[in-house]
């Protein structure tokens, strides 16, 4: 979204594709003081039945928000945001965050968002409400 482009229902945000790495998950755990070994200890993760360490639930939300805010480009202010951790993701997965405007009014707009893995499985559905920044 650029300049004074009008937000309309049906508009889609630019997809954000990302592939988690061990280093990224380690850094995110460090930044959020999350010592849960499932996110940085591959041996522990495999012992728990996973091929590798898992993406933090909060990071799913953050990636969805990154996609949305990049598209918004400072033109609106986040009021509400919700997301669900529905399917696990791990190092090496290719995840794509997309979204669609589903409601507009004089004050702002709402988007449905989702993060999908390479198999088309929804890892994290989300929704956001933003208020226009009036200049």
């Amino acid at each position, binding site marked *: 979204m650029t300049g004074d482009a009008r937000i309309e229902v049906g508009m889609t945000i630019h997809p954000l594709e990302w592939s988690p790495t061990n280093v990224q998950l380690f*850094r995110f755990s460090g930044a959020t003081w999350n010592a849960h070994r499932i996110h940085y200890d591959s041996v522990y993760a495999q012992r728990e039945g996973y091929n590798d360490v898992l993406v933090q*639930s909060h990071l799913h939300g953050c990636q969805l928000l990154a996609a949305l*805010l990049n598209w918004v480009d400072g033109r609106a202010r986040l009021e509400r945001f919700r997301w669900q951790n529905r399917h696990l993701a791990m190092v090496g997965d290719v995840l794509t965050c997309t979204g669609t405007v589903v409601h507009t009014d004089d004050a702002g707009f709402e988007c449905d968002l989702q993060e999908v893995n390479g198999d088309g499985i929804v890892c994290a559905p989300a929704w956001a409400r933003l208020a226009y920044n009036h200049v």
Partner: protein
Amino acid sequence: MIGITAERCIGAIVEKEVAHFLSAITGAEALDRHAWSGLYLSSVMDWNAEPVAESMREDGTTESQVLSGASLSGLRLMGGGQELEFHQDVPLGEEIVVSTQLADAQLREASSGALLLLTVQSVFETSAGPILTRRETFIGR
């Protein structure tokens, strides 16, 4: 435990913390400090500054990471999601108090076995009022 509120001061947020947090998120731009400061506040799992190695479980989690005072020993916890309401900008350098309560606890049967669903509500505020309301779910098995 349900409905009982615990309140604690978590100190002040500084710009560098938010910058470190952003650097671990693919594609995140620092343009929207309002949103990202709020996301940072809602994503930190533990505000304890003291070394708490002795209180850590074998999986690396601590008691205070979900709900201070709740005994969750033996439970494997995973994050289920969040509902966030952003009231005002997170003021950097200003002390923040968080009030937390266990809003709901439900035991459900799934194909993989029994699941404990915990809903925790937290309100972060400064002397100027609420900054962020967070409703977060955890799945225990």
